């Protein structure tokens, strides 16, 4: 008999969780509640003695100072409505799992696999609330994809003696079938197979039940059919599912690998090609150690240490369950550096979110024509994603000092959630290069970490398709940072004891992909599915093989090291199981209790994928230069601009992410006298005890892509490099990562945009001598649904490229940040300002529409890498020489925003002259102030360093003294025609900057 224990805060103790719900309900739903109290509910699904229950409730679940418990329900509570939210069967219940382990530890009892502890939370609402209101609140507090929710009046609650006992047990019928899938059928039937999946059976009314998309195209299905003809048989379902995973757009990047017009693979030509060219040019200074061949790109940090970096996206899952999607994303990308080379210690996380308008107040689009399943509101997505990255990063003990948030209405259907992780590894482990690994014939395949469940089935094929009403809900899962932390810690111990010869993470495609990839190292593998530990019984063989259940790594362990490896894992409370062995048979063999489930040629598995042939088109946008009047009150315009969603402070998010853990923070996300102004980059000291550092920054400018994705990509690269230069990194030691998040990549125009962006990546990476070391793409970020009238609707994200930079800082003690230091310091503009308002935040504000709509378009900022690189080298020399007091990169919001950040951070004023701001041939004052010309900084210099600064920057660098830091309260700027055009209080700018997202 299961037992329910409720725990609540004692009277008079602040109930932060309850209060947070009350305020959110009032703010977001407009329902006023007198109070909300939260109750934690633990349901122990195991027979225990009453004394044991009491002991557990008292010692474990209750804080004696603040909380009280009851076995059963709090029937004495005063409230009007009770709402209880718990997980659906099979959804990861982290707290429940911890509770179960803690009960075992405290009582010294054992639990069988099916005996669990389930955690749910009850909210007791007091106030004048109708049943509709209660239901509305209940729906707001829960996500039907992962949670169950119930609500009751107090009357019903008393009558029923509580909410009742809910046991979300997973009960599945036994399933050990290995099905033959007949491919000798018509093309139409093959496409049904691709879109809807392998036939599972029929339901009661005789309609087909299918497993969900394989997302293979007809040509791929033909190739598979032909291969199995050669084998003299049809494939099994396991084989077909496995091929679909391995060949998915998500895993094989089929579009980047395709022949596109005359280009033989954008990836090979533009991205990898750029890196090869840069490596040649750099010769002995080439920092690349392992690029594009492992889970993350590895570069040299110094003679003792190497660094790797990977940025991923987790978009589709985050649209459905923002919290689960985001935490799975961040914890998932952590496994990339963990599984790179022989494994690295994780030293930093980054995040990047693209959301719809958080203040959107019109009817939400729906997934179905009847309007039953609206998409989540952008603010709900924002908050869920923010929290997911918070829990994933903070609980893993990895600092998150870098990130960005971009807002655009086109991210409403599908948000973009970028997550990245930097790893650090010794250059050598036991005399061997740490970035090299090789599974050998005879090594055992060991899976360690979490168990396999139904979660994440079809994750890889799912993200290769647009989101629609039939998106499989098994794709949603919730990461568990603590299980992974235990695994990661134990792995590094095993690594240093040289207990395995290779490792990779189980990501998309689960063990089918991890074993399949590692099999390439030895030349084959043989896996026994019956040995794979599962969360619950009843999983079909194909599901065990492709499930993406999280927190797992796959190791190749030599037989001689096996006992020691397993013993180490056991002693760290990490489950590790031998599931097969590596061979050199040339085949990927999977068995279930002796039966053959899969037996496929390894070369076919990895290289049999037919190349796509695609063609593209490109139409340059039509448009004209802005023709509106220069605003009369530039101060007010300036203030408005600083409060724009895309420019304003993100302190709300920054403070909830631990950016100090590991003790290496140098340049933090926020700086200034009041620590509330954003820096351009983050700097960390990854090796305590050394003054060498890493600087990281991002470039993302989707608005530029509305005009031309070539210019967008160029500016993204420049922005990412300029950001790290601004804080003191060496521009000649920068490496880059690319993340393309595109839309409708089956349309020639979109492919044309992709091609131009990729070409710019080649041109500018080579021009800057900055190699791409890793990248990822996500090609179908489209939402297909219905508007409020039930009309079909497609919302596609704007073509989005994130360029992430990682650069060496030779001495972190010479780093600088954005804040003005002293009145009397000189204010310089470095670089040239042009009339390049195209895609700018200012133009967006003034025209009130996207640049893609008819109307003023303007000219995109151009990037002159040769000239800019001279500027960056000059900056680096001057910063290392201690000649610069502060520097702000001119990015979104142009010169104006850079001046504002300099002044706001310093708590000082600026008196300057826009006719001296390095603008040549620019006739509009607003263009001087807000044009987003690339390659520029606002720099302040102490009086006694001025001469040395100008000499160090060199004659080749355009710099202009435009003003001085003042102790007055204002930014005062003379216009091009003389007379002050801006005279605005820094405090006003800052108030606007801080107010927008001050949640």
């Amino acid at each position, binding site marked *: 008999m299961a037992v329910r224990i409720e725990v609540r805060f004692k009277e008079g103790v602040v109930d932060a969780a309850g209060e947070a719900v009350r305020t959110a309900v009032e703010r977001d739903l407009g329902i006023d509640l007198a109070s909300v109290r939260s109750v934690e509910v633990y349901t122990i699904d195991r027979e225990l003695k009453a004394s044991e229950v009491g002991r557990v409730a008292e010692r474990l679940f209750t804080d004696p100072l603040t909380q009280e418990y009851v076995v059963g329900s709090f029937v004495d509570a005063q409230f009007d409505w009770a709402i209880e939210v718990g997980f659906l069967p099979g959804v990861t219940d982290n707290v429940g799992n911890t509770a179960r382990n803690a009960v075992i530890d405290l009582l010294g009892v054992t639990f069988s696999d099916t005996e669990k502890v389930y955690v749910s939370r009850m909210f007791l609402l007091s106030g004048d609330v109708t049943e509709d209101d209660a239901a509305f609140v209940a729906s707001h507090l829960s996500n039907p994809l992962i949670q169950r929710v119930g609500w009751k009046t107090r009357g019903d609650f008393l009558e029923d003696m509580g909410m009742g006992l809910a046991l979300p047990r997973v009960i599945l019928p036994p399933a050990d079938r290995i099905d033959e899938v007949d491919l000798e059928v018509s093309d139409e039937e093959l496409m049904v197979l691709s879109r809807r999946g392998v036939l599972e059976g029929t339901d009661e009314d005789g309609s087909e039940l299918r497993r969900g998309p394989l997302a293979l195209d007809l040509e791929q299905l033909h190739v598979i059919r032909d291969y199995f003809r050669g084998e003299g048989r049809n494939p099994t379902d396991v084989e077909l599912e496995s091929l679909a995973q391995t060949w998915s757009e998500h895993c094989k990047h089929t579009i980047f690998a395709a022949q596109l017009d005359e280009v033989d693979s954008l990836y090979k030509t533009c991205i990898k090609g750029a890196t090869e060219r840069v490596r040649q040019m750099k010769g002995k200074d080439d920092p690349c150690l392992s690029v594009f061949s492992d889970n993350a790109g590895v570069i040299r940090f110094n003679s003792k240490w190497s660094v790797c970096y990977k940025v991923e996206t987790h978009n589709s899952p985050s649209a459905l369950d923002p919290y689960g999607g985001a935490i799975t994303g961040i914890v998932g990308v952590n496994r990339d550096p963990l599984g790179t080379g022989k494994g690295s210690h994780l030293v930093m996380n980054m995040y990047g979110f693209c959301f719809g308008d958080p203040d959107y107040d019109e009817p939400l689009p729906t997934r179905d024509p009847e309007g039953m399943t609206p998409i989540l509101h952008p603010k709900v997505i924002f908050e869920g994603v923010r929290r997911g990255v918070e829990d994933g990063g903070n609980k893993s003990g990895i600092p998150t000092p870098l990130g960005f948030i971009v807002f655009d209405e086109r991210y409403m259907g599908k948000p973009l959630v970028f997550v990245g992780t930097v790893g650090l590894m010794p250059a050598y482990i036991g005399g061997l290069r740490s970035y090299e690994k090789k599974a050998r014939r005879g090594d055992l395949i060991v899976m360690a970490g979490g168990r396999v469940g139904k979660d994440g089935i079809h994750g890889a094929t799912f993200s290769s398709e647009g989101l629609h009403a039939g998106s499989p809900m098994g794709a949603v899962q919730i990461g568990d940072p603590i299980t992974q*932390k235990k695994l990661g810690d134990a792995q590094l111990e095993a690594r240093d004891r040289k207990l395995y010869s290779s490792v990779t993470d189980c990501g998309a495609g689960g063990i089918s992909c991890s074993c399949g990839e590692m099999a390439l190292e030895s030349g084959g593998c043989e896996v026994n599915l019956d040995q794979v530990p599962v969360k619950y019984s009843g999983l079909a063989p194909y599901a065990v093989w492709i499930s993406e259940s999280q927190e797992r790594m796959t190791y190749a362990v030599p037989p001689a090291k096996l006992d020691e490896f397993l013993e180490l894992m056991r002693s760290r409370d990490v489950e590790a199981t031998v599931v097969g062995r590596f061979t050199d048979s040339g085949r990927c063999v999977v068995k279930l209790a002796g039966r053959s489930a899969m037996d496929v040629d390894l070369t076919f598995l990895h290289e049999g994928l037919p190349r796509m042939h695609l063609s593209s088109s490109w139409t340059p946008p039509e448009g004209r230069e802005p023709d509106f009047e220069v605003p009369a009150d530039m101060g007010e315009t300036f203030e408005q601009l600083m409060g724009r969603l895309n420019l304003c402070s993100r302190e709300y998010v920054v403070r909830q992410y631990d950016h100090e853990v590991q*003790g290496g923070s140098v340049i933090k996300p926020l700086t200034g006298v009041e620590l509330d102004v954003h820096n351009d980059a983050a700097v960390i000291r990854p090796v305590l005890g050394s003054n060498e550092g890493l600087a990281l920054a991002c470039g993302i400018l989707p608005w530029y892509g509305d005009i031309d994705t070539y210019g967008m990509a160029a500016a993204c690269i420049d922005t990412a490099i300029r950001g790290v230069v601004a804080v003191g990194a060496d521009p000649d030691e920068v490496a880059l990562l690319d993340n393309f998040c595109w839309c409708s990549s089956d349309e020639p125009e979109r492919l044309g945009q992709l091609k131009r962006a990729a070409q710019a990546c080649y041109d500018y990476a080579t021009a800057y001598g900055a190699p791409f070391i890793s990248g990822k793409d996500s090609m179908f970020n489209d939402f297909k649904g219905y508007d409020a009238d039930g009309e079909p609707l497609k919302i596609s994200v704007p073509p989005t490229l994130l360029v992430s930079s990682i650069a060496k800082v030779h001495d972190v003690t010479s780093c600088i940040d954005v804040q003005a230091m002293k009145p009397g310091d000189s204010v310089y503009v470095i670089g040239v300002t042009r009339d390049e308002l195209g895609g700018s935040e200012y133009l967006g504000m003034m025209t009130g529409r996207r640049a893609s709509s008819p109307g003023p378009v303007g000219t995109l900022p151009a990037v002159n890498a040769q000239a800019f690189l001279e500027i960056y080298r000059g900056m680096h020399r001057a910063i290392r020489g201690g000649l610069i007091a502060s520097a702000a990169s001119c990015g979104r919001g142009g010169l104006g925003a850079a001046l504002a950040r300099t002044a706001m951070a310093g708590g000082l004023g600026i008196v300057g002259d826009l006719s001296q701001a390095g603008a040549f041939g620019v006739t509009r004052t607003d263009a001087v102030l807000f044009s987003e010309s690339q390659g520029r900084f606002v720099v302040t210099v102490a009086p006694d360093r001025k001469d040395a600064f100008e000499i160090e920057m060199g004659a080749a660098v355009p710099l202009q003294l435009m003003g001085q830091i003042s102790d007055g309260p204002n930014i005062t700027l003379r216009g091009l025609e003389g007379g002050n055009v801006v005279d605005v209080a820094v405090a006003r700018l800052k108030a606007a900057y801080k107010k927008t997202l001050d949640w």
Partner: protein
Amino acid sequence: MGAKPRALVLTGYGINCDRETRFAFELAGALAERVHVNDLIADKTRLEGYQILAFPGGFSFGDDIGSGKVLANKVQTHLGDQVAGFIDDEKLVIGICNGFQVLAKYGLVPRLDAPKIRQSITVTFNDSGRFEDRWVHVKNTSEKCVFTKGIGRLDLPVAHGEGKVVADEQTIRRLEDEGCAVLRYVDEKGEPAGGRFALNPNGSTNDIAGICDSTGRVFGLMPHPERYLYFTNHPHWTRMRDEIRRQGGRPPEAGAGREIFENAVAYFR
């Protein structure tokens, strides 16, 4: 000068500040080791061989059920005798952030009724209902604690969602009277934060940021001294460096957080 004291820095189950805490003790002159809690439970390592025991920050067991609670239970269940003996031997124990939560829920601080071990304070959710990462000013208001000898004011970072110290009035009064309220949140001038948010980041009773036991040898605190080992950790370091340079000076290398660890090492010399 005696031999270097040995510090055991606990790891495992989501503890995550163990590396920098070990480094802090090494910098301060100790021989420090990270030891997995299960290796102590399995008796592969014994506490007897060490002079300092550190419960580092992190998210042991994910803060599930209650921060520090599950680890406190685990250590008490399996290692209770060793820990009690360690403290009786006049050795030092420090708990930082999650480690402080462990010590509080274990009952090792303030332990006003020693030798009894009973939880008398708790560390609970911030009033803001949020995780807060920010720097705070703290002031040493006790002569008793070994770890804070000679320290006046200190800037340190906090990063937690559950840092509010709560106890009944009598316990608060006693721990203040008996010199166990070691660190308090203050403003930039050193005046009490008086509960004002951000200066006092969590709403902690009487601005209490750190507590020691009745011997002064067991110390728990919410702020992270191991995150301020370098001058460049300070959020205003670029500004401070600029000031120093303009006056012709050279900025320091060390961060003031080291003093906490140096005091621990000095205790054994």
